[in-house]
């Protein structure tokens, strides 16, 4: 038993009032927590979708070029020399930036020109693990990804995202229902040769089939897979493993450019670009503004919405606490007089009222957070986006919410508590 007993017992005695305040604040917290969770999942889902459209930052060496045109006839750009980036160093520096956690994929590229059956074609060296993350919409129409077994290919196709997750510009692959995927026969790659993935248009144009051999200088690549049409530049190129292409083209450890996919719900893209620029001086960095700005607008809109709703709810709750406490001060004048006559200081009386409000806030914070957490699952189910992201339960957030609510309700009760502390025993008890 101590001074808090007085506050808590009164809250229990006036249970209807306490329950009402608890309800208002809990509802407020439920709304805020649920909105926050749902917007986070929606944001994550949005990020995932946007990332699946490709990189949003392009890192390339600075190159000297001259645009040639005469008499209105454009001859295109003349490149004075082709520069390369050191792959390991570039990737390491990007990984070393402060906002590393906002970088989801780093995908280096090496482009080598080749002639196949008299036609010029680009062979692009990629890191397939990174590339597949960057281009979630890729589907192998025939064969497998380089380095993939037929079983792995079948499993991947079975788990492939449904069609609505594919980017809008990607046409539906012909006969490419992932549920119907069956292991395809592995293409044998002879010793000394490497696997190659052909874009759909390139394969058609060059007459490439599974097992076709594509020579590059003295090296040989064997087509082990053909991509389903993507509607992107990937349709027109041949894709090889980076290490193999670097060896074959005589550019070991070198790349032409690096694509970076950044998650920007929690940071401005400019900060990432600035940090990459600082880490890679003398390198050209371009952002794909459209995607980035679209992301930022979406995320900012949701954030502003949450902030506005939260403010209204909290202000309403705080007003209710203030009004309720103020009326309680008038009701409890005699109690206050008794406490003061027993030697309770003004500060003690003040803290009784604050503690009562804080107790309501603390409990509302706990109840509201837990309810909000479970309500958000229901909302996600109703919106049919449960799979868009995970909702980890964070005890620290629960404690922080309860603490913030306790502080808020205490602040709301400051004026009534101050009024209570100012009551003299004479005005409450003395009958003159």
């Amino acid at each position, binding site marked *: *038993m101590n001074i*808090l007993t007085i506050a808590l017992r009164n809250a229990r005695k006036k249970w209807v009032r306490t329950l009402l305040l608890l309800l208002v604040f809990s509802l407020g917290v439920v709304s805020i927590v649920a909105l926050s969770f749902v917007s986070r999942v929606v944001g994550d889902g949005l990020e995932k979708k946007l990332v699946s459209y490709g990189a949003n930052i392009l890192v390339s060496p600075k190159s000297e070029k001259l645009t040639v045109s005469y008499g209105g006839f454009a001859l295109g750009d003349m490149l004075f020399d082709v520069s390369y980036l050191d792959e390991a160093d570039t990737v390491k520096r990007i990984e070393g930036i402060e906002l590393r956690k906002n970088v989801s994929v780093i995908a280096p590229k090496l482009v080598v020109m080749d002639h196949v059956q008299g036609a010029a074609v680009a062979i692009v060296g990629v890191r397939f693990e990174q590339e597949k993350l960057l281009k979630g919409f890729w589907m192998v129409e025939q064969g497998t990804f380089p380095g993939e077994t037929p079983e792995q290919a079948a499993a991947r196709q079975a788990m492939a995202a449904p069609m609505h997750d594919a980017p809008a510009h990607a046409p539906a692959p012909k006969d490419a229902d992932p549920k119907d995927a069956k292991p395809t026969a592995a293409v044998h790659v002879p010793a000394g040769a490497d696997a190659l993935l052909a874009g759909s248009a390139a394969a058609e144009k060059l007459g490439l089939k599974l097992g076709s051999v594509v020579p590059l200088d003295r090296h040989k690549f064997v087509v082990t897979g053909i991509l389903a049409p993507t509607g992107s530049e990937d349709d027109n190129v041949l894709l090889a493993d980076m290490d193999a292409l670097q060896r074959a083209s005589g550019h070991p450890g070198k790349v032409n450019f690096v694509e970076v996919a950044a998650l920007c719900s929690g940071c401005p893209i400019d900060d990432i670009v600035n940090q990459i620029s600082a880490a890679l001086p003398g390198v050209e960095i371009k952002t794909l503004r459209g995607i980035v700005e679209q992301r930022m607008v979406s995320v900012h809109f949701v954030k502003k919405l949450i902030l506005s709703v939260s403010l209204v709810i909290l202000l309403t709750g705080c007003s209710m606490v203030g009004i309720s406490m103020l009326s309680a001060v008038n009701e409890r004048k005699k109690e206050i*007089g008794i406490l003061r006559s*027993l030697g309770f200081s003004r500060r003690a009386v003040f803290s009784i009222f604050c503690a009562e409000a804080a107790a309501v806030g603390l409990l509302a914070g706990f109840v509201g957070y837990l309810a909000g957490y479970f309500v958000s699952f229901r909302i996600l189910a109703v919106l049919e986006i449960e799979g868009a992201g995970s909702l980890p339960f964070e005890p620290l957030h629960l404690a922080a919410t309860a603490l913030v609510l306790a502080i808020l309700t205490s602040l709301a009760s400051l004026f009534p508590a101050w009024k209570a502390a100012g009551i003299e025993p004479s005005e409450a008890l*003395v009958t003159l």
Partner: protein
Amino acid sequence: MHEPQIIDAPLLEAIGITKSFTQDGMASQALKGVSLSVAQGEFVSIVGRSGSGKSTFVSVLSTLLMPDAGQVNYNGKDLVRATEAEINAIRHGDFAVIFQFHYLLPYLTALENTLLPFMRSLKPVTRAQKTRAMECLARVGLADKAHRLPGQLSGGEQQRVAIARALVKEARVLFADEPTGSLDSATGATVMELLGQINTEGLAVVMVTHNEEYARLAHRLVRMEDGLVV
């Protein structure tokens, strides 16, 4: 009458107390230079008609009301000029007040109401303080109702809890403003008997009452009229 040990040196002394109030724009002087001294262990009754200023005077003596002028000396200190912290300390340790209405906290049990003086801070009530509170409740005949809420007690029982609350502090002066005013005669007599017993143990009692019979139980009877001791 009880036979307490009265020490002649004044424990509490009021000198030239004046107090005015303004009501509906009309000023009225409730106390017009009242003086009184109370010795340790003395039982003083203050009687007078309604509006004579007796309640105002006991409120000034008990520090619940500050006078316009005059001195209230307690233990060599003028309480009119004391700091708020000093007043709080005296209210907590030395003075106890009971009123016509018990003013118990309705959401605390009889035991908790008795312990209220020890619940001023976050420091929990000690086992010794609980034992003391139970003794006080036993003394007023309410040990078996210690865990009841005030609403479950009769008017007389509630007033006895208020007395137990006054006793628990081991104060030196008990101020009682019409302690029997809202009680029937039998219960009133019980309460008066209790006050008499308390006084015999050395506690000074200053009681305001309308009841001449009860007033005569005191060592000294002070009659007030129109803001003056007559």
